[in-house]
């Protein structure tokens, strides 16, 4: 037995190994994304359609309810909201990707290898974060083309994007858990959208929450997507885009707290579930 042990090179343990394995898995997922252009195409078409549709269809009607910080343009109000929304929607890909890998047996292959246990999920979520970054950049470009202008500074824009991406990243751990529990790609998508669509429409993404009925307003004004949207909007349009009494810094801190809390709850559950999952 001792001779057998001696012939096995012990792998470096801890963070270095986890980082290296995570990079390998993330790279694999990104290569898949690039080689399956139809997936990338469909996942970036929906956000663009949303920007165009809502701007041109609802823009005129909604204009009057917007705060002056929107400078009279619905695109100025809408684009930050949709960026936050699609940071959230992008996380759904984590769920369906994991479910697919479970079904194909790739996860079992990973689990039989002497790799860091966390790398399967970390590699998946990080690859999805990269993909979300690409999607949001594309959305921003389309937004600029149809008249969106941020009213503050470039650092404000970058900080805002970083905040909603962190928000989306936290959600991708919730989606990882969902993917591991539900396990079929189609069912996972349906289940995920049942959750995220209502969240999107009961938020400040499309319209200010003040016009909603009181009982809904209480929820809508405080739910995580609204907070993330407010933080981004505040950083892009200035404090005038927020409710009286809200500050940009306050919304930013709240958005980061929401993200941290979602991550802190979902990631250990997902990792535990991944360890025990049997296909």
């Amino acid at each position: 037995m001792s001779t057998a042990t001696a012939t096995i090179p012990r792998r470096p343990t801890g963070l270095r190994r986890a980082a290296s394995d995570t990079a390998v898995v993330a790279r694999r997922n990104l290569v898949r994304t690039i080689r399956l252009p139809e997936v990338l195409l469909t996942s970036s078409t929906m956000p663009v359609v949303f920007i165009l549709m809502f701007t041109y269809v609802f823009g005129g009607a909604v204009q009057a309810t917007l705060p002056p910080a929107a400078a009279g343009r619905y695109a100025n109000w809408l684009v930050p909201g949709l960026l936050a929304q699609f940071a959230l929607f992008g996380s759904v890909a984590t769920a369906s990707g994991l479910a697919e890998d479970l079904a194909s047996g790739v996860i079992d292959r990973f689990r039989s290898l002497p790799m860091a246990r966390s790398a399967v999920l970390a590699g998946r979520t990080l690859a999805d974060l990269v993909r979300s970054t690409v999607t949001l950049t594309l959305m921003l470009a389309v937004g600029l083309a149809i008249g969106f202008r941020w009213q503050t500074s470039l650092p404000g824009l970058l900080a805002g994007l970083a905040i909603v991406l962190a928000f989306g990243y936290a959600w991708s751990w919730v989606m990882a858990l969902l993917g591991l529990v539900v396990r079929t790609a189609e069912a996972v998508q349906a289940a995920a959208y049942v959750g995220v669509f209502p969240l999107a429409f009961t938020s400040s993404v499309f319209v200010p929450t003040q016009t909603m009925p009181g009982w809904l307003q209480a929820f809508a004004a405080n739910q995580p997507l609204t907070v993330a949207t407010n933080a981004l909007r505040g950083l892009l349009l200035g404090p005038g885009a927020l409710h009286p009494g809200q500050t940009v810094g306050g919304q930013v801190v709240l958005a980061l707290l929401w993200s941290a809390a979602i991550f802190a709850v979902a990631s250990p559950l997902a990792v535990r579930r991944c360890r025990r999952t049997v296909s």
Partner: protein
Amino acid sequence: MNDPIIEVEGLAKDFGKVRALDGLSLTVPPGGIYGLLGPNGPGKTTLIRVLTTLLEPDAGSARVAGVDVRTDPDGVRARIGLAGQAAAVDEVLTGRENVEMVGRLYGLPRHEARRRAQEMLGRIHLVGAPDRPVRTYSGGMRRRLDLAASLVGRPQVLFLDEPTAGLDPASRRDLWELIGDLVGTGTTVLLTTQYLEEADQLADRIAVVDHGRLVGEGTGEQLKDRVGGAVVELRLPGGDHGPTLAALRDAGMDPSYDEHTGRVVLGAPDGSRTLTKALRRLDAEGINPAGATLRKPTLDDVFLALTGHRASPSGSGPDLPARGGRPGQARRAEAAR
């Protein structure tokens, strides 16, 4: 002199009402190919999944290459490779990318992973295909790639879970040849199969597993010897085998009924004299077989004698074996001793 490479003791695992492993104990010596033979069912795959740390057993213990699967699963993973049903190659990546990725996840530095991938790909004859996406591969090519990926970490134990299931005969023979070639480098192979021919061709030793228990173990020859040097096969008119079995048992013989072929099979330790004795006895009972042959036993006969049913299902049967009273059930306990 040599420590066993795999030691399994009293392993149990239930999936709801299905008992996949029922106190299974098994010892595999190092080197060579060890065949795990059993009918379509959860037993063999469950055992592989426990030994490869994909599944925790309900009870019992298992050591692979001297390492306990429960207390040091990571140590086990560093010493094993897994291919076949349970593990998959990535369809979108190329063959080379697949093998390199697995090498990296075994902890090899990038250049070493690349070098070994090149070496493994050379050995599996993927002519012109290593840099094509796997989805363009044939079934046989995928299995060969799977094998290359599982060997890139130079495992002490290689687990092959039904490596040729679903392949056509030509691809199956190709893969057998490859498995035979790849072994002999000090790797012990544990192979599960429901094809007797496969176990007979490849395995140095064979364990027969039925309903989550070990019902027989030994070399192919040893197992065949348990049936005797020869086998008598009786074809009955109308397929009414009940009286025949009763008559032969009265005469102190141990016949089995093969539901698959509708024939009665009987170990013939005394060769033609057993045949004569059986026919005399049946004649006295007024039973006239439509045919009677004396032949060399196959592993199939061994399986039938040990378990009371055939190993190879015709076509693709259900995943779980039917339970309930079957002719061989009472005898299984005796055979296990």
